[in-house]
């Protein structure tokens, strides 16, 4: 687990810095997507998360879920196209999971990618992810990550 200004970034994940999301490749060809620690810090106390329905096709850069905090709302964008094959009902019932455990319990949807080799070129990991997020945080004037519900991974 790497750390950047109190923001946790697990080393085993791939990241899309601009979309502020992580992805995890499952062994069966599907891919999980979720919000990063930085994204949950930006949102503040999350009160609603509405993942898109299973069976929907999504294009690169389009929304896979709507996330709402007190006064903020925003989409969670997918870095690759595909079909949603599973959605995490737990985050729909208790959206604070996204604050508490953005990487483990807080996966949002599972996608069967249609053209990952091409779409996935913007994904980074390791040092590239750290330096990318460092620039991102400076641009957005984020001094550090805040774990309003604690951090459970």
């Amino acid at each position, binding site marked *: 687990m790497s750390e950047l200004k109190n923001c946790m970034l697990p080393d085993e994940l791939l990241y899309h810095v601009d979309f502020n999301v992580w992805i995890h490749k499952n062994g069966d060809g599907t891919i999980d997507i979720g919000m990063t620690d930085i994204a949950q810090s930006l949102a*503040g106390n999350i009160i609603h998360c509405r993942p898109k329905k299973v069976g929907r096709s999504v294009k690169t850069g389009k929304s896979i879920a*709507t996330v709402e*905090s*007190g*006064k*903020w*709302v925003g989409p969670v964008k997918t870095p690759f196209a595909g079909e949603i094959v599973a959605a995490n009902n737990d985050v729909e019932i208790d959206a604070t999971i996204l604050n508490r455990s953005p990487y483990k319990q807080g996966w949002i949807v599972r996608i069967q990618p249609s053209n990952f080799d091409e779409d996935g070129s913007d994904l980074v990991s390791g040092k590239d992810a750290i330096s990318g997020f460092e620039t991102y945080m400076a641009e957005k004037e984020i001094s550090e990550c805040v774990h309003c519900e604690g951090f459970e991974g």
Partner: protein
Amino acid sequence: MSIYKDAKYQDVPYEKKQKLFQEVKEDMRWESVMYGCYECGICVAACPSARFYDFSPRVFAQVMGREDIDTFYELLNDSVWDCSQCFSCTRCPRQNNPGAIITIMREVAVNHGLSSAKKALQAYSRIIYKIMSTGTQVAPDMLQPDFFPDWGPDVKDVSENLDVWRRAVPPETMHTTELAWDVSEKTRLELYMIWKLTGNLEMIENIDEGIFMILEEVMEELLEEHGYDIDDFENVLED
């Protein structure tokens, strides 16, 4: 040259500033909001924002009256967002309406997708989303400890038991937590059509791509569920 020593937008071409200034003056409301200022300061004395920020409604009346293009552009990117739009300033003895001048200026800033406008509105994205998707601006569940620290420790208890608190409100249409009151799907669809047909959706796309994306997807899904064709809006309005 701007009246401000620390002017931030000196590098912006004068022609661009002038174009936006002209757009404010060409607004149909302009002639009924600006008659000339004799600097009595009544608007500043009445202005709640002036008590808390380095903000003055009088500056708006003076700068616009003098056609000071450079200072106008500074105001358009900065002070324009400090106004609370309460219109206390309408007690002007010359019938100037600095609040309305600011309304027009904000619209010009938003229509042109100025980055200062994007930044100013960023924190209110859910309010914009609510009003555009439901017509209700404030939702009870906006009462969260991190957004309303000024409510003190009570806000935590209120936020955790919102449904109970809301049931204490007599009308059933207000037993809502995500919206100020219950809004019918027909109202939501009509609203969406209004935003779409009047060009407001495009304006939102300029200012916050995220809200635009969500709004479009949520509402188009709702239309689809009801079997409406997006181009056939008359059906929605007649049903």
